């Protein structure tokens, strides 16, 4: 096996890539852009320090998240990741409001469906046959007050419970 090619970090930093180079496992030589962007935002020595402070099994994830943040910072030099966080928090907020409204709608429907003594349908009373009606049918037609559906006016502020990502 010949000499291994230097990792992307050591290529960029123009130094010898040691056998125990801390960058080598995470910045292969075939992806120079990955280290370039992390170096531009964080600096090689800061990245090296951060990796050294982590156990080995967490370093790959740390590198990936640093690359993610560096990319976000390059795309948006002012807000970086914070812009994305702000946008996503707004989305969560809106969705939670939509969910609260939908859940309130279910409550309304369920309350409307509670067993209510049904109002008897009004019976046509043709004048010429009114003397034929049995007395109980007069009572049957008179009660209609139990048909009123309670009116629930939704107040979004009262329904929306605040528990946002802090």
């Amino acid at each position: 096996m010949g000499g291994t090619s230097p990792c992307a970090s050591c290529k960029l930093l123009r130094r010898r890539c040691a056998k125990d180079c801390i960058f080598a496992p995470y910045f292969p030589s075939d992806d120079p852009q990955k280290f370039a962007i992390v170096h531009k935002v964080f600096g090689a020595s800061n990245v090296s320090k951060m990796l050294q402070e982590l156990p080995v099994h967490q370093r790959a994830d740390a590198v990936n998240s640093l690359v993610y943040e560096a990319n976000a910072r390059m795309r948006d030099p002012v807000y970086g990741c914070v812009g994305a966080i702000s946008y996503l928090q707004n989305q969560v907020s809106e969705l939670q409001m939509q969910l609260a409204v939908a859940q309130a709608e279910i409550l309304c429907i369920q309350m409307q469906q509670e067993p209510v003594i049904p109002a008897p349908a009004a019976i046509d009373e043709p004048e010429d046959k009114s003397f034929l009606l049995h007395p109980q049918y007069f009572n049957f037609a008179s009660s209609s007050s139990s048909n009123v559906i309670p009116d629930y006016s939704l107040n979004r502020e009262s329904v929306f419970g605040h528990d946002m990502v802090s």
Partner: protein
Amino acid sequence: MNSRCAACKYLRRRCPSDCIFSPYFPPNDPQRFACIHRIYGASNVARMLQQLPENQRASAVDCLYYEAQCRVQDPVYGCAGIISLLYQQIHNAETEIAKTQAQIALLIDSNTQEQQVYLHQNIEVESDLNILLQEQGDEFSLLGPPNQASSGFI
């Protein structure tokens, strides 16, 4: 008397009048620069600020500070961890909304069916009543005109 900005104090250097850090790192908040420096380094921060118009630098420093704090609190995932969590929350909320809307559709559907059954039952009652009225009418017609009825109810 000129007091050095927090950055120059931290870096132990003279704070020039045109120091790029001084508007954003007042001396009364040393932690702000210390945190940013730990993650980004002074020269990177200076370069990033120089590449921005002045009116955007304050916001940029605030965001860098926020991100640096996230990284200090979570050295593995930093801000990316928060973003991942937010995506998960969005997914969960969308799933819940879809389930809730399906429940609403089901409730409305079952409510409509109950109303139709109820109306249908009412129509049956009314038609039964009409039949009864007709039968009673027939009975009385068999008795003849009232003045001929043996048991007139009028």
